[in-house]
């Protein structure tokens, strides 16, 4: 750390030394530019010109110009002897390092150089600056290598501007000293004032003692303005710097004070039309560079005079109530307190930007917070609604996360005030509640849903803690974003299942009831069926008794009688067995059965009934029909019903035409069983209604027979339809699917 810092310092030091070395190397053959100031070196005007010169020369470092400054200190030092001494001094001083350009500042310096030039550096071109225009005019013609730009000490411009600002002023008070310089100024002012408005008078206060001056200036009213170029010697005979004299004048004057020099700005003067000393210096530097560059002095293009601009002290503008609008646009305004915005605009900009960004951030954060609050509220509301809905529907919701091996479960609570009960359980725990017989199917359904992404839909039983078996239906799917997650709901469908079971029981009971009622209609026929063999047995037995009374007994005949008795007994037993099954009330039992056999057996039961009604039955049974899967009792009921209906339909038919036809046929994968009668048929509009419950055309019928027949057909995955035959009469056909060969 320290080593690194030391290293950096060393490198910086080396860089600095190299810089110094470079400067030294350049200055060694530096080209001397000698500046000779008329007045003392501390005169502010000189300082500013010097600054302008230095700036102008350093702008062109390749010219390697080097500035040397000398001061004549006029007007404090003057006289021929002094001039000679100065000339000698300068010649000697700069003998080894002769100037290549001499710049003279002010009239005294120009006069000095013009007179002593031959003794000093006769061939060195001279640039004059800050020489008053009218003064220079008196020196023409100048030598060709003496060039420069004079200064126009613009009293007229200053006065004109001042009168514009102070329209009440009728008098211009000109304050000067009592020296030669001051007399020059008085003459200059007088000459310029001739061009002023005739209403304005001039008053000269020249060389007044300070106390007098204070009184005179302090008594000035608004009809006056003051002009002072400053002075070097006051009325008390003391030597002063012009800027200090201007400060004094401005301090004691009750009227606004104007001046010709920009250096006076800040002493209390308002300002005036004037040339900038810094600009004067810069212009001199530019001319010097041109000459150093080898230009002939005559070829350097120069303005007629230094351009004047209005210079102002903003504090004085405000003090004297000068309207800012009347200030010229190009005026050089000084001491204007920059407005806060102007002074700190970049800070303000940064601060503003920071504030803006901060506000934006705060607003964004507030909006975000509001959004989140709303979202949270909406979420809570949604959650509440969902819970309410789930509770109302008695739904359990669950999310089973395979990755987390966790199952979240929300079950509807028993109490309506508490809408939720959340549990986290293991899936195996859930599975253990499932009835053992359903466990495998539930597990398989879950695995299938997870592997295929299909919906899960499974019904299963659970055994509650009290041992009560309840039916549940679960429905859900894998989370699309996370296939390891299953979401779903579980509904308690026990009431539905119970209702279904009850409905099935009711249906069975109804079928049984209608079957019994049907058998009641057939009771005469059935009694006949039973009576026939009984009668036969009785007669045979009595015949045998009679035979046994005689000797010898006709044994072959007796044997025949016995075998007849046995056969008839079987016949009776068969009838009872068939009937018993029909009367029995039991669960449907699906078994393979032969439809033709069913037709024959059923017809046998109705045989006597049909005989009594004079209905002839004919069978058209297709041979070698495949078996169907069915409940014998139900199908027999269906057929019985159709037969009885057919017989009923033919009550009004002439006896000879009472024909009942039962036919069977194979029709694709189904067996068709039709019962046709020769009754009046079914009116077209009723074909659709005959299967509706409680639809009956019979006075005594309940109208549920055919409805039950159709439900039986449907339960056998078959159908039952009605139509009318072309030759008259109705046909009822049922289609039963052929038993799938195992």
């Amino acid at each position, binding site marked *: 750390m320290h080593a690194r810092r030391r290293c950096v310092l060393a490198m910086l030091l080396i860089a600095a030394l190299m810089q110094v070395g470079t400067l030294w190397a350049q200055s060694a053959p530096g080209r001397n530019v000698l500046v000779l100031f008329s007045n003392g070196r501390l005169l502010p005007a000189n300082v500013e010109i010097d600054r302008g010169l230095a700036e102008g020369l350093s702008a062109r470092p390749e010219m390697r110009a080097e500035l040397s400054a000398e001061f004549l200190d006029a007007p404090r030092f003057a006289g021929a002897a002094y001039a000679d001494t100065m000339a000698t001094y300068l010649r000697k001083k700069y003998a080894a390092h002769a100037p290549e350009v001499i710049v003279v500042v002010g009239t005294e310096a120009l006069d000095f150089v013009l007179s002593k030039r031959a003794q000093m550096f006769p061939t060195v071109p001279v640039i004059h600056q800050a020489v008053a225009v009218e003064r220079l005019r008196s020196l023409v013609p100048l030598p060709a290598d003496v060039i420069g730009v004079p200064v126009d000490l613009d009293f007229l411009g200053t006065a004109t501007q001042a009168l514009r600002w102070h329209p009440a002023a009728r008098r211009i008070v000109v304050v000067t000293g009592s020296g030669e310089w001051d007399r020059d100024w008085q003459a200059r002012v007088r000459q310029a004032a001739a061009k002023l408005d005739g209403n304005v008078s001039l008053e000269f206060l020249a060389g007044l003692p300070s106390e007098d001056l204070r009184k005179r200036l302090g008594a000035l009213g608004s009809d006056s303005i003051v002009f002072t170029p400053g002075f070097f010697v006051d009325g008390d005979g003391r030597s002063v710097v012009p800027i200090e004299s201007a400060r004094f004048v401005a301090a004691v004057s009750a009227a606004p004070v104007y001046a010709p020099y920009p250096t006076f700005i800040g002493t209390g003067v308002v300002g005036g039309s004037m040339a900038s000393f810094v600009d004067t210096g810069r212009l001199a530097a530019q001319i010097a560079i041109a000459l150093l560059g080898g230009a002939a002095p005559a070829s350097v293009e120069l303005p007629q005079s230094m351009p004047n601009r209005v210079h102002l002290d903003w504090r004085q503008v405000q003090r004297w109530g000068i309207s800012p609008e009347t200030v010229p646009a190009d005026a050089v305004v000084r001491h204007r307190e920059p407005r806060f915005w102007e002074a700190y605009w970049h800070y303000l900009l940064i601060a503003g930007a920071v504030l803006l960004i901060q506000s934006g951030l705060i607003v964004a954060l507030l909006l975000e917070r509001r959004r989140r609050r709303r979202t949270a509220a909406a979420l809570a509301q949604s959650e509440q609604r969902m819970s309410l809905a789930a509770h109302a529907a008695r739904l359990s919701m669950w999310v089973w996360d395979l990755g987390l091996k966790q199952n979240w479960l929300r079950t509807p609570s028993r109490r309506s005030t508490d809408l939720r009960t959340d549990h986290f359980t293991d899936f195996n725990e859930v599975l253990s509640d499932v009835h053992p017989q359903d466990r495998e199917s539930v597990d398989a359904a879950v695995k299938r849903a997870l592997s295929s992404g299909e919906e899960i839909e499974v019904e299963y039983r659970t055994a509650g803690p009290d041992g009560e078996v309840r039916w549940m239906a679960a429905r859900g799917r894998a989370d699309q974003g996370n296939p390891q997650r299953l979401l779903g709901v579980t509904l308690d469908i026990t009431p539905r299942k119970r209702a279904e079971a009850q409905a099935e029981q009711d249906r069975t009971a109804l079928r049984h009831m209608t079957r019994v009622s049907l058998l009641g209609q057939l009771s*005469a026929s059935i*009694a006949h069926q039973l009576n026939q063999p009984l009668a036969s047995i009785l007669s045979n037995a009595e015949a045998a008794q009679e035979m046994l009374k005689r000797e010898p007994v006709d044994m072959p005949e007796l044997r025949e009688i016995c075998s007849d008795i046995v056969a008839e007994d079987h*016949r009776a037993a068969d009838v009872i067995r068939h009937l018993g099954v029909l009367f029995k009330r039991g669960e449907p039992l699906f078994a393979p059965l032969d439809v033709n056999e069913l037709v024959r057996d059923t017809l046998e039961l109705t045989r006597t009934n049909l005989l009594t009604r004079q209905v002839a039955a004919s069978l058209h049974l297709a041979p070698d029909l495949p078996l169907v899967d069915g409940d014998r009792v139900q199908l027999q009921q269906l057929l019985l019903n159709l037969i009885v209906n057919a017989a009923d339909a033919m009550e009004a038919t002439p006896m000879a035409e009472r024909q009942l036809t039962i036919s069977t046929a194979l029709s694709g994968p189904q067996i068709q069983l039709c019962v046709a009668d020769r009754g009046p048929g079914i009116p077209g509009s009723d074909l659709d209604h005959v299967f509706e419950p409680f639809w009956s055309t019979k006075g005594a019928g309940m109208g549920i027979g055919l409805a039950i027949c159709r439900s039986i057909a449907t339960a056998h995955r078959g159908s039952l339809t009605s139509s009318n035959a072309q030759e008259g009469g109705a046909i009822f056909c049922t289609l039963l699917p052929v038993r799938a060969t195992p």
Partner: protein
Amino acid sequence: MTASAPTVFIVDDDAPLCRALARLLREHGWPTAAYASAEDFLAQRDAQTPGCLVLDVSLPGLDGLALQRRLAQDGPALPIIFLTGHGDIPMSVQAVKAGALDFLTKPVSAESLLAAVRAGVAQDALARRSLSETVALRERFAGLTQREREVLAALAAGKLNKQIAGDMNVVEQTVKFHRARIMERMQAHTVAELMHMLARLELAQDNPPTATPRP
């Protein structure tokens, strides 16, 4: 005419029952003839054979009651004993009104069946005898002359010999002669007996035997 022994005709579509009934009746000495349907019976029976008919009510085709009606149309009815699987009262009333001898419910006991059969055969015998008497009377009546029939009709109307002679414009003696001839020819011993004969003939005329043309 009465050469054949009384026979029991059985009509029942139930073959085993037919067989059993025939067996029972045969064991009790009755000749039997069994038919599976009414049509068979009508086609095959010998109307001259006396006896009775044991008939099942419910038959395919022509049923028991229809057969009864048919037989009644044809001539002197064979006594019919109906058998039925169940006691159908309206049907039995209809059968009995139409002249059925009995209406038995299956299974029928030998005792009641035999009693019915005996009664039936007896009734048939009686009917057949009565029928043969009527036939004889009719033949005797046919032997009367026109004049004798007129006298008989007048006698039947209760007129006296003198009135009849007056009506016929003959002498009373002639009427007496006719009357004696009538008594002789009709083999009547008294006038009352003659009147009885006449009544039987009148009755028979309501339902005349097909074999005998109406006079």
